[in-house]
């Protein structure tokens, strides 16, 4: 296989930021508002603390297999069958989660700016762009992300700042929302919001060093959690807690309130622009990860041929839920929690086995690494 392109720490950091933060663009703030009421912004911060063990597992796993992705590890440890067992479901799981996010996104965009275009037509160019990005690989995706940063992170921060100017500070109180105990419990239950961090396991070969991974995983996720908290804070300060749970597309509603005077208002179209950019980058990375997982599972030397078929499958999956609310329900009640649990168990199990094997045969550490090339 072609040598994978390397991602710089800076690029990876921003890529992880975008990948994990873009969930906040859709239904997530409403779900957080149901759980956290006036303290919704505390939830991602608490969730991040719960997430630390998972991040630790991800970092440790790379020390054993620095140039492999997750699905190749069971092959090395157990054999071919294990690879199939993990790889196939994982690839299609990623596709399905992607499709759910895509569905929510399409429905919202469809309503906000292009109400009369049917969603199939809306989605087609979108997916072509995403597939092109996936085709180009993570290197191109991360670089595109960096050059468009003024339009994504910049616009986001501008919009956040604008909405803070209209905030009512006393919406922050009562500061603990439903109570600390409930916050802690619901933060734990919503841990799967951060399942995005698992993409790092598919990008192992693209990461320069363990140090870079450690930095990106810990601080990158911390930044993402902080950013999400900031967005939720903006949301919570603009709408009272009785209201936050009622709004379907919270961030858009937030943006629609911005008013910088006569010439700078009605910015939601601009925000849609930002959202589309972020979502294309996210979806193309998801697509790449699904495809690379699949390609590695079937030991294909290239991943590029599978990109467009997979994009088409995603396109079909997108229309499986009957409506927006179903997509949200599937995503947040089934796909994410169970996916998170499975991934966590899988990764920790692989880590344990790898550590155990290494301990058993400390001398043969080198052969463990070399083995895959022989396979």
């Amino acid at each position: 296989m072609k040598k994978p392109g390397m991602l710089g720490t800076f690029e990876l950091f921003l890529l992880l930021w975008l990948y994990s933060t873009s969930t906040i663009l859709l239904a997530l703030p409403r779900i957080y508002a149901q759980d956290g009421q006036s303290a919704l912004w505390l939830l991602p911060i608490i969730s991040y603390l719960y997430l630390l063990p998972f991040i630790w597992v991800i970092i440790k796993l790379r020390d054993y297999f620095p140039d492999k992705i997750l699905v190749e590890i069971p092959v090395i440890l157990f054999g071919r069958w294990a690879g199939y067992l993990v790889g196939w479901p994982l690839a299609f799981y990623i596709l399905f989660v992607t499709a759910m996010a895509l569905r929510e996104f399409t429905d919202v965009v469809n309503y906000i700016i292009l109400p009369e275009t049917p969603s199939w037509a809306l989605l087609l160019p979108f997916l072509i762009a995403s597939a092109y990005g996936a085709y180009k690989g993570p290197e191109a995706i991360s670089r595109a992300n960096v050059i468009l940063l003024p339009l994504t992170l910049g616009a986001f921060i501008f919009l956040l700042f604008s909405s803070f100017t209209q905030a009512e500070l006393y919406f922050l109180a009562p500061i603990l929302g439903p109570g600390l105990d409930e916050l802690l419990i619901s933060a734990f239950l919503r841990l799967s919001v951060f399942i995005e961090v698992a993409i790092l396991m598919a990008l192992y070969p693209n990461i320069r060093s363990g140090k870079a991974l450690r930095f990106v995983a810990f601080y990158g996720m911390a930044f993402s959690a902080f950013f999400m908290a900031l967005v939720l804070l903006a949301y919570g300060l603009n709408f009272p807690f009785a209201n936050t749970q009622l709004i379907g597309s919270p961030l858009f509603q937030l943006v629609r309130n911005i008013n910088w005077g006569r010439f700078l208002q009605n910015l939601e179209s601009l925000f849609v622009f930002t959202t589309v950019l972020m979502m294309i980058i996210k979806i193309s990375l998801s697509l790449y990860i699904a495809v690379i997982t699949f390609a590695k599972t079937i030991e294909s030397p290239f991943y590029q041929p599978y990109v467009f078929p997979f994009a088409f499958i995603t396109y079909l999956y997108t229309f499986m839920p009957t409506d927006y609310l179903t997509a949200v329900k599937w995503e947040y009640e089934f796909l994410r929690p169970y996916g998170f649990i499975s991934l966590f168990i899988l990764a920790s199990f692989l880590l344990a086995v790898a550590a155990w094997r290494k301990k058993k045969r400390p001398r043969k550490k080198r052969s463990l690494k070399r083995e895959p090339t022989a396979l």
Partner: protein
Amino acid sequence: MSDKNVNKVKKILAIAMVFLSVTLLTSCWDKQELDQMAFVLSMGIDRSPAGLLDLTARIAVPEAIVGAGQIGGGAGPTAPGQITKVLTVTARTLPEGVALLEATVERRISFMQCRIVVIDEKLVEEGLHRTIDFFNRHREFRRSLIFFMAKGSPAREIFQHAVPVLEENIARYVEDIVDIQRQFGFSPFVRLHDLNNTMEMYHFDGLIPIMAINEEVAEEKEGEDVKPRPTEEYWQDDEPAHEELKTIPGKLHRSGGNPVSYVGAGVLVGGKLVGFMNADEVRITELLRGRYKTGIWSIPLAQEEMNYASVILDHQRPPLIAVDTSTEPIRITVTIRMKGKLMEVQGQDIGTPEAFRLVEKKIAEALNKKALDVIARMQSIPADPFHFIRPLRWRTLTTKEYVAIPWHEWFQNAEVVVDFQPEVEFFGFQVNPSRPNLKVEEKVLEEPTEEELPGEEEWE
């Protein structure tokens, strides 16, 4: 060309076809040229006598606007009646009204530029929650939509009577009203967002600004123009001096200008109309809420008649509200600091710091009295548009605790102390008022007599 190349070309062609078809197809769906749309600039909603909804819309005529402003050089039509058209349809629900409107106007109706909605008093009495869901849900309305309540006459009347003094452009007219609202606080600045918030938030009550037709001016309106009536007629409506000026929107004694006035507010509890405030009271409420910016106040300095001091009072810092729940009934203390400049002083020397303090004291007393009056009236409803619960909100930790506060009962019986602390900082260019010198002072201060002055007869 080899086979491989032919295949490649075919592939590229196929991709190009897909792209082209997508682009061509999509442009049929959502593309709306500006000249295919009818933009609603403002809307009015009434309860018709039959119990249906009257939906009044003011639709812009872009061609007339351009003709008036730019190309023609001023000869074009300028009155709102010519650059906009007012339509009314009656329907059972608002969306149905919109549908009927679409059927009436040749072009597609767009609410994207709609900035203002005037709701009839009756509808507010029924409760706003029944009306505003349409606005919350519809993609073309934003939560920054401005709401007004029509008092005294249906909203439709207001549309018919509105004649802006200066603005030709209705959109700018609305923006200006809002600016004035925010600046001087004679009526509260209320968006759809605020209506929603005050309706849903626990223990907060809201206001809604009032638009009303001033009968005196409305009589002067002929066609599109307001012709100020002769002074003799104007004086007929004069009211006795020395009484508190009426700042009730429909009753303000004036002539010329816009027949529609927008001062005063309705008080909402849970989105339902429960009371009214006049313009002065709204200003006091804005002060207590902390939204006040600036305003001109005239305060009687002494018991003597016609002896006023006028000041501009500027916002200085947010009001300090303290709620003492240990007492029974609870005690609410509000401290408000303002900065001021003297505008006029009648008759009295104020050229010393002590005199300044005296003026400050007088202002504080007057404002205090006004504030307590308003608060007492609100307590009797009970409604809390002053948001006095804010300090208590900070003292609760969980939402359950906060929701459980029996605020309206507490507020009803609360003992309120308002402490205005105006700081008059500067006196303008004049320290003491100019007055006749001591030699002639006594003569000048005499009461004017009915006798004819010398030489006056020649003038008649």
